[in-house]
């Protein structure tokens, strides 16, 4: 099997010949290529080269194409900073009053230069590696997360929890769903094998399961449906400890859920079963970036052991790997997979 076939198998619930690996490594890939984050985000050929080189260096099965977590936010008017050595980030919000939702007009994201760079990078990777390696076109923020960027985190969470302006809150989420689906459609045209989004502030580290079910999940489901209408499998990532919403997350209809390291592994295993593919979830900071190879091995073996009875598993870090993650730690993680007998999976 090649990498693409392995991840396809994991998504379809059939056994791959070994556990597939797809790393959330954009910062590390850029650092190893010797380029700054500014150079990385400005040139689709450089983005593709960084990911391609990393995939070859570590013999990865999948490439997760990501440039930052605020690409869509910039398109809808959130002010951004573009640091030389860090990913782009927001420096404020663009909707100081919720009533401004009424004035939001249609937006066409296709002419945005940063969106074009992201999509072009995915298209290059599909062209150059797509026969052998699984290409995941990450489409940035899910609707709840995008709305949060537009309002600012504190204010958005209070908008939601106060329930004083539900019509406007849902109006903003509708707007963000439309924007998110536009990017999915553009990404689908690249030939990417899977689409994905992140909904970082929607998990229980921020939001109660009840509010998650009302304000995040319905819109995540619609984006997943959009991906399926485009004929592509879909993955959703939520940061933090998601134990209390795992059952709800399964109902989104995503083919895979990417889970952060704080989530209870056994619980996720038991809830996901054969319904959805688990992607994750080694601690990117304390284990992969700051730990020793021995610690990486310990944590990876523990993870592989928990999912040893399931073909629906793809190994990754729980969230983005820091730029300075040592390559020997990544190799220690990969060695656990490569040294494992295929018989384990029979």
């Amino acid at each position: 099997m090649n990498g693409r076939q392995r991840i396809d198998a994991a998504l379809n619930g059939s056994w791959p010949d070994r556990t597939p690996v797809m790393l959330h490594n954009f910062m590390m890939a850029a650092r190893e290529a010797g380029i700054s984050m500014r150079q990385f985000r400005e040139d689709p050929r450089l983005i593709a080269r960084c990911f391609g080189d990393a995939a070859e260096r570590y013999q990865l099965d999948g490439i997760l194409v990501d440039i930052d977590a605020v690409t869509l936010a910039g398109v809808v008017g959130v002010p951004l900073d573009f640091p030389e050595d860090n990913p782009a980030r927001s420096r404020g919000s663009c909707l100081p009053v919720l009533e401004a939702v009424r004035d939001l007009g249609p937006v066409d994201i296709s002419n945005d230069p940063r969106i074009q760079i992201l999509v072009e990078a995915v298209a290059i990777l599909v062209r150059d590696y797509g026969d052998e390696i699984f290409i995941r076109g990450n489409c940035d923020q899910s609707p709840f997360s995008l709305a949060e960027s537009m309002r600012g985190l504190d204010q958005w969470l209070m908008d939601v929890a106060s329930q004083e302006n539900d019509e406007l809150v849902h109006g903003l989420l509708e707007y963000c769903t439309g924007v998110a689906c536009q990017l999915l459609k553009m990404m689908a045209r690249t030939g990417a094998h899977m689409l994905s989004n992140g909904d970082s502030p929607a998990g229980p580290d921020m939001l109660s399961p009840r509010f998650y079910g009302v304000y995040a999940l319905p819109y995540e489901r619609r984006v997943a449906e959009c991906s399926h209408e485009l004929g592509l499998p879909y993955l959703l990532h939520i940061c933090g400890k998601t134990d209390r919403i795992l059952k709800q997350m399964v109902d989104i209809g995503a083919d895979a859920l990417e889970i952060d390291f704080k989530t209870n592994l056994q619980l996720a295993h038991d809830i996901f079963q054969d319904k959805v593919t688990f992607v994750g979830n080694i601690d990117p900071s304390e284990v992969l970036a700051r730990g020793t190879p021995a610690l990486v091995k310990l944590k990876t073996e523990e993870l592989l052991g928990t999912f040893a009875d399931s073909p629906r598993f793809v190994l990754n870090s729980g969230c983005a790997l820091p730029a300075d993650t040592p390559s020997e730690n990544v190799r220690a993680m990969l060695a656990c997979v490569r040294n494992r007998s295929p018989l384990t999976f029979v």
Partner: protein
Amino acid sequence: MVRSEELYDAILNGDAKKAHAVTQATLAAGAVPMDLITGTMVPAMDEVGRLFETEEYFVPELLLAGRAMKSAMELLRPLMATSGEKLSTRVVIGTVKGDMHDIGKNLVASMLEGSGFEVFDLGADVSPDKFVAAVEQHTPQVVCLSALLTVTMPAMKTTIDVLKAAGLRTRVKILIGGAPVTGQYAKEIGADGYSESASGAVSLVRQIVAGA
């Protein structure tokens, strides 16, 4: 000691308008500001912290409670300034240089304020020099540093080093927090403590004050 059940409930329910109105009425009836803080607002924020720890409240509920508490404090502060009443412990707090994330810092600031501490919030992306200036100006007992990103964690150590170089390190206790931060990291960089939650940070500050 004044205990206003209405204010207590308004804070717990995150109802800023009601908290403001109740405080106004209670003051008009002769309540002493400091009594309202210690008798009602501190217990209310303690309960908010407890509900957060037991996962009955989440971040939005904490933010709403903090906003309600602040709407009451807006009425109390001018009266306290006039009467000469002072909150006993001062805390300087900020997110370190390079990090724009302020949700965790805001939660801690809000909980500290509601727990009866005088809080000087320097905001996000705060340079070490600004922390130095704030310590010189406000003479706090505690400095809280926040970082959400692995890449900005080193700025915590830089801030501590600059406070040392300015001769201010021994005057303050330094607490750190944020998603990637650990107790081990706090020890490594010479901080005095670490908490992974807003209510834990309040407990730490209380311990420091009690041990002072």
